[in-house]
Structure formats: structure tokens, C-alpha cells
């Protein structure tokens, strides 16, 4: 109770509510009692703070009131701008958020599209590109010129002139390779299946007429035979055709005619099956272009392991080749006919252990450009 009375006295003293007598008495007490003095100092500070706090609070309330009144009177722009101003205001307020939201939406859309695109199965037809070549007019002309030249040479060499064949317009081109010494060749069925006239050109530019012996469209293998007097059959072939299947990652190379000259390409076997799990073929990572179709795929020993047929259009370097064992299937069928009963396939590669340049040098004479009309 004394404490309460004391505090009351202190408060009255600070506020100056004491009578002069009381005040004198209290100041006397302050001087003699340090505790009282301490209390006065402390409480003065507290009351000061309280007063300022009270003013601050009141002023804040006043401001709120003034704001509300002025807004009501229309003296200041009210909190909610109307009409276009509101749109502008909302835009300003949320433009950052809008921008961020828009970017997120954009990224999500692109990401989702990419995901859907990558996951969605694609139409197989659009993805495989047969690598036969369109032979252009310019080339035909140059070939024609060469043919003419050859015939002139022939005429000079042989007094008995042969009748000049009518010019043939070749529309498709590819590659083929010899499989026996008598002029049997393997190429892709899609190169020659619609052709009546077939001509093959060797690396030196010599042209020979050929005809289709057998077409196996499902396997995309064709056997053609050179039927030309000028063709000098080789004694033997440097390479053989591999019967066993190939291992993944085995280095391979190919020779073909994507242009008018023989072109070398190098790669590796990337999968044992072909497009969409096709067991007829295998996947090879190699640079191939239209014109490489029908070209032989060699392993490092120089054995033929397949026939290059197509590539995936969407991806560079994904090329498919008919496995070499299907060449044997086709040839086995062929052997049933009496004409080809005695056909002899090259038994053993002579290229084993040679340097690649040497291998290619020996092989290139047996790889031909195949043209069909």
C-alpha cells in the first residue's frame, strides 16, 4: 500500500499537481532517500515515453481520420482509382507478377511440348529415309558424255561399230558391290525395283550394263548381274561376307557413291536391331547420304557385315543396314535355280590385318555405282 501511495505521489510530483508545501516536503524526501530519487528519475522517463507514445498514437489515429475524411470529400485521390486508372494501377501493381507468371507459363508450355514431342511415337514412314540418290540431269549429261567418249574409243578400237544405245534417263542411284567373280552384285531392292535399265559404274568411271537377277523387297536386297562385254571379271574378291552376327561397338566402314566419286565413311555398330526393333537390320552410327544405299558395310577385317539401306531422318548418324546373314538367305534361294547353282561366294577375306587405306584400295574396285531408270 505504501508503494502505491509513493507512486501516486511521484506521479503527482512529476505532473506538478502537488501543493507547494507537499512539493517542498517531497523534494526533501528525494534528497534523503536515494530509492525515491531513483524512482522519480525512472518514472519520469517512463511517463515521458508514455506521453510521446500517446501523442504518436493519437496522431496516427488523426491521420487515418483525416485520410478517410479527405477521401470521402474527394479532396485526395481515393484508394480505389476507377476506370482506366484502375487498370493502369492494377497493371503497375502486378506487372512483375504477370511477367514472372507469363515466363513460367511459357517455359512450362515449351517443356511440356518438348516432353510430349519426345515421348510421342512417331510415324515410322516419316523417319526412315531410303538412301537412294536422285540422279540429276547434269550428271546424266556428264555420264552421257563419258558414254559417248567410250563409244568413240570403242569405235576407234574396233572397226565394227556397235549401234549407239538410245540415251537413258537414270532416275535413281545407289551403290552395289560384287559378290562373285562372274559379275554378280548385291545392292538394295529399292534402288532397282522399278528400273528396266540398270547401269553400274566403277570407281574409274567405266560403265557396264546390268540386269536384275533377284529382288527381295521385304529384305530390301537385290542381286544384279553385270552383262557387258567390256566387263573383265576379277580373278577373286578380296573380301568375304560374314556369316556370324556382329558385336555392338565394332568399328565399321563403308564405301559408296553419294556423289559421282567413291566416298569412304567410318563408324561403329550401335545396335543389333534396326528401326523399331527390326531384326532384319542393325543400327550403325556412320555418316551416310542419299547414294550410299546398297553400299557394303565392312568390319575391321574387311568382311561384309551388311548392306546400308536407310537412315533416320530426324537424327544424324543413325543408319540402318541389312544384316549380312540375309544376303546368304537371298543367295540360298537363288542357288535353287539351275543357272546359279554353281555360284561361288568368296570364302575368306584377304584383307585381314591390313591397314585401312590398303583395305580400301583393294576394295574400291569392287564397289560400283548402281543407276536405274
Amino acid at each position: 500500500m505504501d508503494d502505491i501511495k509513493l507512486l501516486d505521489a511521484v506521479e503527482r510530483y512529476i505532473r506538478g499537481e502537488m501543493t507547494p508545501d507537499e512539493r517542498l516536503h517531497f523534494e526533501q524526501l528525494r534528497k534523503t532517500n536515494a530509492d525515491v530519487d531513483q524512482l522519480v528519475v525512472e518514472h519520469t522517463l517512463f511517463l515521458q515515453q508514455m506521453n510521446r507514445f500517446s501523442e504518436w498514437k493519437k496522431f496516427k489515429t488523426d491521420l487515418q481520420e483525416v485520410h478517410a475524411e479527405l477521401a470521402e470529400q474527394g479532396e485526395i485521390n481515393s484508394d480505389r482509382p476507377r476506370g482506366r486508372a484502375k487498370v493502369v494501377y492494377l497493371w503497375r501493381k502486378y506487372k512483375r507478377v504477370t511477367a514472372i507468371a507469363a515466363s513460367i507459363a511459357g517455359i512450362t508450355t515449351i517443356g511440356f511440348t518438348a516432353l510430349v514431342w519426345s515421348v510421342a511415337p512417331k510415324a515410322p514412314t516419316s523417319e526412315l529415309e531410303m538412301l537412294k540418290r536422285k540422279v540429276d540431269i547434269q550428271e546424266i549429261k556428264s555420264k552421257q558424255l563419258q558414254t559417248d567418249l567410250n563409244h568413240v574409243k570403242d569405235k576407234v578400237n574396233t572397226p565394227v561399230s556397235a549401234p549407239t544405245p538410245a540415251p537413258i534417263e537414270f532416275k535413281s542411284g545407289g551403290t552395289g558391290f560384287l559378290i562373285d567373280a562372274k559379275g554378280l552384285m548385291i545392292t538394295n531392292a529399292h534402288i532397282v525395283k522399278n528400273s528396266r535399265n540398270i547401269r553400274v559404274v566403277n570407281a574409274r568411271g567405266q560403265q557396264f550394263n546390268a540386269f536384275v537377277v533377284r529382288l527381295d523387297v521385304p529384305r530390301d536386297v537385290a542381286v544384279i548381274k553385270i552383262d557387258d562385254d567390256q566387263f573383265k571379271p576379277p580373278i577373286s574378291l578380296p573380301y568375304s561376307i560374314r556369316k556370324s552376327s556382329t558385336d555392338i561397338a565394332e568399328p565399321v566402314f563403308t564405301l559408296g557413291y553419294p556423289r559421282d566419286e567413291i566416298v569412304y565413311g567410318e563408324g561403329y555398330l550401335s545396335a543389333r536391331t534396326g528401326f523399331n526393333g527390326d531384326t532384319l537390320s542393325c543400327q550403325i552410327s556412320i555418316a551416310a547420304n542419299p547414294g550410299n544405299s546398297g553400299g557394303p558395310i565392312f568390319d575391321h577385317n574387311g568382311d561384309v557385315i551388311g548392306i546400308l539401306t536407310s537412315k533416320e531422318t530426324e537424327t544424324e548418324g543413325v543408319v540402318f543396314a541389312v544384316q549380312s546373314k540375309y544376303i546368304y538367305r537371298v543367295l540360298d534361294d537363288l542357288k535353287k535355280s539351275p543357272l546359279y547353282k554353281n555360284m561361288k561366294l568368296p570364302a575368306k577375306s584377304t584383307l585381314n590385318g591390313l591397314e585401312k587405306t590398303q583395305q580400301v584400295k583393294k576394295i574400291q574396285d569392287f564397289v560400283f555405282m548402281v543407276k536405274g531408270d
Partner: protein
Amino acid sequence: MKAESSEKALLQGLAQSDKKAIETIYKENFNMIQSLILNNSGSADDAKDIFQETMIVLYERVRSGTFELNCLIKTYVYSVSRRLWLKRLQQMNRYTPSLDGLHETVPVEEEIEEHERMNSEFEMMNKAIGSLGEPCKSLLEAYYLEKKNMQEIARSFGYTNADNAKNQKYKCLMRLKKIFFAQYKNGNGNG
């Protein structure tokens, strides 16, 4: 001359929390500040906040007694608001190196620092009173803020006599002072 004297009168009015003076200053400056805030990625609410804080800075200044305004109230208000808004933007990590605005400014750094110090003290007091709970909060507010006398308080709070009310007030005050001085020392120790 006339304008200058009317500005002085306005400030004097503000020092006495004269509502008319507050209204006049409010009316003459609010729209300018609102457009400043709105043009610099703020909302109408932000504008109100910033402007009222500016008014408090001005109020504190004129209350301090040592304040002498060497420019127009408009310029001063604009400078303070601009500085406060810049600070707010920085706190929100949305620093814009320069605020759009064509008005001239005066340096107000010291005022704002002082204002922030006082503001934190007031917030401290506000928190201390808020943490007391009822009936202490209302009782103390009635006595110290609304300056009611004990008889009035006893009546409105339902105490049988003023002494009972005084008794209760004393207990509440002791609690408040304890909290306040603890925070006060803490705050001063920290800062």
C-alpha cells in the same frame, strides 16, 4: 512572404496536432506522393502508409522544437517520402536505383534515422502494452493515454471505488514497466 508565414502557421498547427493543419498539409501533398509511389511499383495502400509515416516524421520534427524548415513543406514531404519508399523497396529486395520523379529533394537522412529510432521505441511500447492482456491494457490506456482520472476509470471498469482501481492500476503498471525497461535496455544495448 505571405506563403512563408502561412507555412509557418501550418507547422505550428501541426505541432499542436491541430486537425485543420493536418488536413491542409494532407490535402496539399497526398496526391503528389501517391503518384510517386504508384509510378514506382507501389500500391495505393503503400502510398497511404508512406505518406502517413512522412507526416509523422514532420510531426516529430516540429514537436522537437528545434526544427527549422528551410524549404517548402512540399519539398520536405516529397524528400522524406521518397527516401522512405526507397528504403521500403530495398527491404523488399526490389531496389530501383533511381526513383522516377522530377521534384527537387532536400537531404533528410538524419530525420529518418531519428524517426526510425523513435518508431522502434513506440513499437516496443505498443508491444509491451499489447502483451499485458486485459484488463491491464485498457486500464493503463485509459489512465495514461486517454488521461482519465481514477474516479472515471473506477466507474467505467466497474471497480467499487477509486482505491481499488488504483490498486489494480499499480499492479498493471509494475508489470508494464518491467517489460518496458527490459526491452528498453535490450534495445539500447543492441543499438
